[in-house]
């Protein structure tokens, strides 16, 4: 591989601190694979990065159309990177539909590398360009730096003697593009070459063809004159030494559940029904049989949660994962878990709603459903992840709270976190906090009767699992008598049990960390209070605002119910509080209700995450107003 490490020509190499790249093409162009490979190489090079795939919800949308465009965006840098980039600096457009669909998000002056074969008459027509118009030729892209590259033709030339048929050769064109990007960003091709050898272990011819295509792309950059003025770029490593892995939010949730079970000495059981964008959690756990994980693909969402309740009754760490429509179906069973007071982790990967809504697009609009979406007084703890890696820590924490406080816990993620990825420094088992189930020990016949609903000082009851001698007891969805757990319709008892169940959840605030300021001063003009996947955008915007000398701080809530004990005090330290949310204003309700303050809301309900520019503009507005 040494041949790609020394280039023949001297071109300018410009150092950049970060760059955002979009790989876009038709669903069949292999853009997800190309993007993933680029991300792996970038990760191994030590840059920080954040990736986000954007693909159509249809499995095979019509080729060449806007609906069929599949994209993979990533930002990488020599400084910490928290988002895939509000806009991209470089766009790879394999066809005219990909260009048309994404041009609005390309920085002015950004680079377009266009596969010219995707701009033929047929493709232009499918993309909806007027008769005779071709953006590569009509000057409409004069605000950008455009490099038309006959990708298909160059791939065919490079592979003409490789022995593959036309169709197979044409499929290698994404590897040509990947090679060209490796050249442009001074990255080695080795990681991808290793992957190709592994992937095509049984077909050396295919492996070689793909590798030849990568090299052809790489050398094309080197040899062609077209990049002479632009030169190459170099991004210094950001990460410190160590062992890393790249995870998506959904993978991180799955790993966390298994890790929590291991740490707690419990068996993991996941009852689940496939639903976008939560399914990868089930898929990932289904592969973890080596760790004793039991997954159960249920007949519906209800059976998904109810099998888990059965497993939890039996002493397993039980979980279920879903998205909005599924959470709606699970609400009755969630009420049962609340009254049974058994541990259960419910991961809700939020998507645009209501109803089927926007299945592949993120939204933060299930917070109030998580908080109030059950009949009766049925409080439960809610936590929310704020980044792909944080999905691990938050899900782990959800499992800890569930087991140690004998309650169902809703753990909120969303479609953005679910599919985004970032590097994660491999965690040591010793750094994970202990999780201590409170199993009730065996009882001898002469001992006092077992009281299933006797509570400790945190109002937590013990976990008496079948198979334990002397603890045979019956519980159910009917209201129970205090301590004995026998069915009771007594009015005073119902009032007491309602109060105890609420108090139990409120007391969890004693065992969770205090809220901290993520960035900025402890007191000031403006606090941005975020939750969930807006973390990266707020973080980046606040960094910039602070650099501009504005009096702004950022706090991000993991614990949404109960809130950290010091939250009210923290909010009081700022003249204004801004709450950006991908919904019509849900956290703001809870904050107003709890603290009787009037924060400023900032809603975005477009099926798209916030970007840092939007947040920064809002900060600037608010501070100027002030």
């Amino acid at each position, binding site marked *: 591989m040494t041949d790609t490490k020394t280039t023949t020509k001297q071109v300018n190499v410009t150092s950049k601190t970060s760059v955002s790249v979009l790989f876009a093409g038709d669903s069949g162009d292999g853009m997800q694979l190309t993007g993933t490979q680029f991300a792996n190489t970038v990760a191994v090079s030590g840059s920080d990065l954040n990736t986000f795939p954007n693909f159509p919800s249809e499995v095979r949308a019509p080729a060449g159309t806007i609906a069929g465009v599949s994209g993979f965006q990533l930002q990488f840098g020599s400084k910490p990177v928290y988002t895939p980039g509000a806009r991209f600096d470089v766009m790879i457009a394999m066809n005219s539909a990909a260009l048309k669909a994404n041009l609005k998000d390309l920085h002015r002056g950004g680079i377009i590398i266009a596969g010219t074969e995707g701009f033929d008459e047929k493709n232009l027509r499918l993309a909806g360009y007027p008769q005779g118009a071709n953006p590569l030729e009509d000057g409409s892209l004069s605000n950008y730096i455009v490099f038309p590259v006959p990708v298909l033709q160059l791939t065919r030339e490079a592979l003409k003697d490789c022995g593959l048929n036309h169709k197979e050769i044409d499929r290698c064109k994404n590897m040509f593009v990947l090679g060209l990007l490796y050249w442009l960003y001074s990255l080695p091709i080795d990681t991808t070459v290793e992957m190709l050898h592994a992937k095509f272990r049984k077909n050396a011819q295919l492996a070689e063809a793909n590798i030849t295509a990568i090299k052809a792309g790489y050398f094309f950059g080197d040899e062609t004159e077209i990049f002479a003025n632009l030169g190459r770029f170099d991004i210094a490593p950001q990460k410190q030494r160590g062992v890393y892995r790249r995870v998506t939010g959904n993978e991180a949730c799955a790993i966390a559940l298994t890790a929590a079970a291991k740490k707690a000495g419990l068996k993991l059981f996941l009852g689940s029904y496939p639903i976008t964008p939560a399914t990868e959690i089930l898929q990932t756990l289904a592969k973890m049989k080596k760790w004793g994980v039991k997954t159960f693909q249920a007949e519906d969402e209800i059976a998904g949660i109810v099998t888990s*309740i059965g497993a939890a009754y039996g002493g397993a760490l039980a979980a279920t994962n879903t998205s909005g429509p599924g959470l709606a179906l699970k609400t009755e069973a969630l009420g049962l878990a609340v009254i049974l007071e058994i541990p259960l982790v419910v991961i809700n990967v939020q998507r645009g709603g209501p109803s089927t809504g926007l299945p592949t697009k993120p939204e933060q609009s299930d917070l109030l459903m998580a908080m109030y979406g059950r009949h009766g007084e049925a409080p439960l703890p809610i936590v929310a992840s704020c980044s792909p890696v944080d999905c691990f820590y938050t899900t782990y924490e959800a499992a800890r709270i569930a087991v140690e406080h004998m309650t169902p816990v809703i753990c909120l993620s969303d479609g953005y976190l679910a599919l985004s990825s970032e590097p994660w420094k491999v965690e040591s088992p010793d750094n994970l906090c202990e999780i201590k189930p409170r199993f009730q020990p065996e009882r001898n016949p002469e001992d006092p009767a077992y009281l299933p609903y006797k509570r400790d000082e945190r109002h937590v009851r013990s976990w008496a699992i079948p198979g334990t*001698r002397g603890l045979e007891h019956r*519980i159910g969805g009917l209201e129970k008598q205090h301590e004995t757990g026998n069915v009771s319709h007594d009015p005073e008892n119902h009032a007491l049990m309602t109060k105890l169940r609420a108090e139990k959840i409120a007391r969890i605030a004693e065992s969770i960390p205090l809220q901290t300021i993520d960035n900025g001063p402890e007191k000031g003009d403006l606090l941005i209070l975020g939750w969930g996947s807006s973390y990266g955008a707020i973080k980046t915007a606040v960094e910039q605002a602070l650099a501009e000398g504005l009096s702004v701080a950022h706090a991000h809530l993991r614990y949404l119910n109960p809130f950290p004990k010091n939250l009210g005090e923290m909010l009081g330290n700022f003249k204004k509080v801004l709450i950006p949310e991908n919904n019509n204003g849900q956290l703001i309700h809870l904050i107003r209700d709890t603290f009787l303050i009037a924060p400023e809301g900032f809603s975005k309900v477009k099926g798209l995450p916030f970007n840092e520019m939007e947040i920064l503009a809002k900060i600037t507005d608010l501070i100027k107003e002030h």
Partner: protein
Amino acid sequence: MTDLDTTLTAGTTLTAKDFASDQEPKWCPGCGDHAVLQQLKNVMPELGTAPENIVFISGIGCSSRLPYYMATYGVHGIHGRALPMATGLKTSRPELTVWVATGDGDALSIGGNHFIHTLRRNPDLNVVLFNNEIYGLTKGQYSPTSKLGLRTVTSPVGVIDHPFNTAALVLGAGGTFFARALDRDGKFLRSMLKRAAMHKGTSLVEIYQNCPIFNNGAFEAFASPEKKEETALFLEQGKPLVFGKDRKKGIVLDGMTPVVVDIDKEQVSADDLWIHDESDLNKASILARFFDDMSVTEDFLPRPFGVFYAASHTTYEDALTAQIADAQAEGCGTLEELLRGDNSYEIR
């Protein structure tokens, strides 16, 4: 939690009373549920499983109160969801003995989806389906097994939806065990419960259970001594299908069609009669069609009681346990391996 010895300690003997909880049953006087509870308590000591290893799971409805009255572990869940709860428990803890108490509304209406999917998966559950052909707890609305024409508060001029045929539904869904019993026939019911307990896989026992308040006498045809001779057919493995006064009527198969014959008059030899074979799914499927509404036709086939079908198939939990054992053949995964994953890279 593994390798539990689930049987009673040697020398321990339990009686039906040891399986009675301290809660008084709250069913109406004369309700068939009392009889089923009694037979369950009677059969428990014979099975040799320690009470702490037995769990009763139920949904919602009169019959679903049953777990409260058994001195075992128990969960009274939500409407229609007893089967998934039991499946989750059994999958997670295969060593436990799991019983399900459910009714015609709970299992066949609101829980219909779970019903068919549980049967095809075949977890080792003992399901006792109390079929009273009516909604009792909500005070007398028709159920998915109510007979056509039945007048109830929600069908004041008669039921117009066709009732489910439980046996056909169970066999159609791939069930591995189906038996039918009657609440009033305690001895026979007990033998069916025992058979269900012994069967490995999902055992479904449909119990015709009288609701004296809202559907009294729904099964009188099979309960009254003078009628049942002509209406009920008791299945015995390896024995010919005979019924009627002095057991003089028999069933022969004419191709795929069951025909009632008068053994003496038509001089049918025992060899020509249908011999019951629990392992024969085709014959069980024909038996399931012995479902005539005797109140509207004189020309009916007798209603079978007993074990229609019992087949040995791998249970869900055993198949899953085997997959896990296979994955762990070269050692269990450690927490360290889990956290590192298989795509880690080192930055030096």
